[in-house]
């Protein structure tokens, strides 16, 4: 079943970055933000908190940009797959993404592209203001934990 990209509402994002640490903790059992596949871009003086995350483009520029063919689409879920063995950390994909939706792993320079955790994104679960939501195939929106408690 092809996944839909996260619905992002920057107007309620509190800039807390719980999504970043949730991403890392969920995937790697460690605490930090540098290998997160979602990042919050901020302009503090303006109150801007913009979550940046893979938009699951219909025709991904990242895949097209890779000289090694290391990026592809997961046929089942539709998310972006990285073949680590093929990736040479050349960095072409970072600039190719029109949404600046991913950065490089500081440990090896390889792209950290969100794969929606296979369908149950850890960041959505953690997001208390409901700035991040999944869109199931039916089009009904999942509620955030905070909405559920009210």
């Amino acid at each position, binding site marked *: 079943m092809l996944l839909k990209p996260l619905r992002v509402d920057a*107007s*309620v*994002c*509190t*800039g*807390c*970055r*719980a999504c970043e*640490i*949730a991403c*890392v*903790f969920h995937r*790697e*059992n*460690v*605490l*930090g*933000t*540098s*290998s997160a596949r979602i990042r919050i*871009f*901020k302009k*503090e*003086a*303006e*109150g801007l*908190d913009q979550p940046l995350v893979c938009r699951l483009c219909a025709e991904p520029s990242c895949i097209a940009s890779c000289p090694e063919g290391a990026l592809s689409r997961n046929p089942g879920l539709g998310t972006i797959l990285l073949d680590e063995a093929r990736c040479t950390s050349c960095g072409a994909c970072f600039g190719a993404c029109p949404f600046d939706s991913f950065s490089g792993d*500081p440990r090896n320079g390889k792209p950290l592209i969100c794969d929606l955790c296979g369908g149950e994104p850890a960041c959505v679960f*953690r997001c*208390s*203001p409901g700035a991040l939501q999944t869109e199931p195939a039916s089009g009904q929106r999942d509620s955030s*934990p*905070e909405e559920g*408690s*009210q």
Partner: protein
Amino acid sequence: MKGYGGQILEVDLSEGAVRISQTEADLARAFLGGRGLNIKRLWDRLPAHTDPLSSQNLLVFGVGPFTGSIFPGGARYNVSAMSPQTGILGDSNAGGFFGPALKFAGYDQVIISGRSPRPVYLLIDDDHIEIRDARGHWGKDTHETATAIRQEIGDQGFEVAAVGQGAENGVRFAGIFSNLVRAAARTGMGTVMASKKLKAVAARGTRLITPADPARLRELLDRVDERIYRHPDYGSRSRLGTTRLVKALNDIGGLPTRHFQDGNFEAADAVSGEAIESLYKVKSKACFACTVHCSRFLRVRDPRFPGLASEGPEYEPLAGFTARVGNSDLAFGLKCIDLANRYGLDAIALSEVIAWSMECAERGLLKKEEADGLDLSWGNKETILALIHKVARREGFGDVLADGVKKAAERLGRGSEALAFHGKGLEIFQADVRSIKAYGLGNAVASRGADHLRAEPWFEFSNDAEEGIRRYGMPETAFRLEYKGKGLVVKHFEEMAAVSDAIGVCKNLYNNMEILDWEETAAWLRALTGFDLDGRDVQQAGERIVNLERLFIAREGIGRKDDSLPARFLHEPLLAKGISRGAVLELEPMLDEYYRARGWDVSTGLPGPEKLAELGLS
């Protein structure tokens, strides 16, 4: 080390030398981190009577095992030094994102010594440490500094903690500011930083901290999420944060109106958190990983203040620039807060020196000519604005006020000292302690001077007599106008506050919402660090920190005689509507009870050898 950054960074600004060493596991276990490890460091390395503005002083930044963990509100860092304002322990704590940056860079503590010959800023980029020229930034406010340094480094991912012009000019109550408004404001830690010619610290970390038991951490996190979302306070805190206290304190007659002459403020509604929410709030804001998001971004559309927009405010500056100085104009109050943040000044101290001046003028103790010809009527906006600028620049009468209310009153004399509302030289907060007596006791005995965050004994608001008996054996503990039992309450909450500041979590969650008790705190620490701690160990760590801080200030001559508060609170009946009317603070019996609860000598207010040995502090 699991759960910790693992390293101590030492920077000698006189030599330009940098040293990285391992965090001592035995000290981390005993003092937990943050404020606890900071006081241990100051105690071990600072001689008695260290001149706070000399190169001998140390400026210590500390984070805890919960800082940058996934615990909601695990965002905090602590700054400690000898205070140039009080001459005793300087200690301040802030949220935002700077603490996690230090943690992810791999540091539990940064110790800054000496003094640079020229203005510099410290760059911390994981292992890469640089002392960089900051001459081009000297003279900038805290916001401009952060923007300029991020631009210079070329990476917005750096968190910047900076001082403003107030610190540069030697205002004794200057703080350290990050993320525009996250302030380690109290006791002049910014003043110490500027005295070392250190303009800012810029930090970024890419490390990933390994917890001892990630599976257990997940279970604990689920429980904490549940506790937070279901907490009866969650609704008001997530909407209004501490700004809700304007109305809440007005309801109990506890506002600091016109320098504590009245516990109610006729304009309370107009300057309340609810007013901010309806007029200016854009959206909620939060510290690192916090699910309460008690802060907000606001935008003021007022032709007098073009472009006024910022995160904030907390209750303290809000009440300080409204009720305390008799100002009923909310937008103007917000403008004052913005100026205080930019100049990098402690808003509590700043509001007190202004309010003190106004009351002195009202009572004929201060003449207009002595205050640069300013009209010191309550709420005079031109005057308030002028005084903020003068204090920050140490100009004219501002130069008198810039030393803090205690020294300003000593300079003026004429009995104005009785109107200087401080404890041990630190200005008292924005609530009238006659209406909240445990807070009164907490202020009187706080180790950094009059302060509510050393204890934050919210339980006296509960009105839950059964719970008071269950916890402390006394129903009076649950009622804010009672004085009996408050010694026990303050002891307990002081240890909670100490642990909160040591592990690096927000006291709104830890003290006020009581999200974790001792056993649960220990469970988190075991899962994060692998230290074999139980609830009793955690409580004892809190007790150890409180006792060591007491030793530190006792070494500077502090004892029972200094655990006092201004006469107004002790002897003048509170003017207020409702049941708080007529209240005074019965400090002496509360002190007796508190010292007994602590196992300290009742006449000196100091711990004896048995108590110190019990805590491993001999």
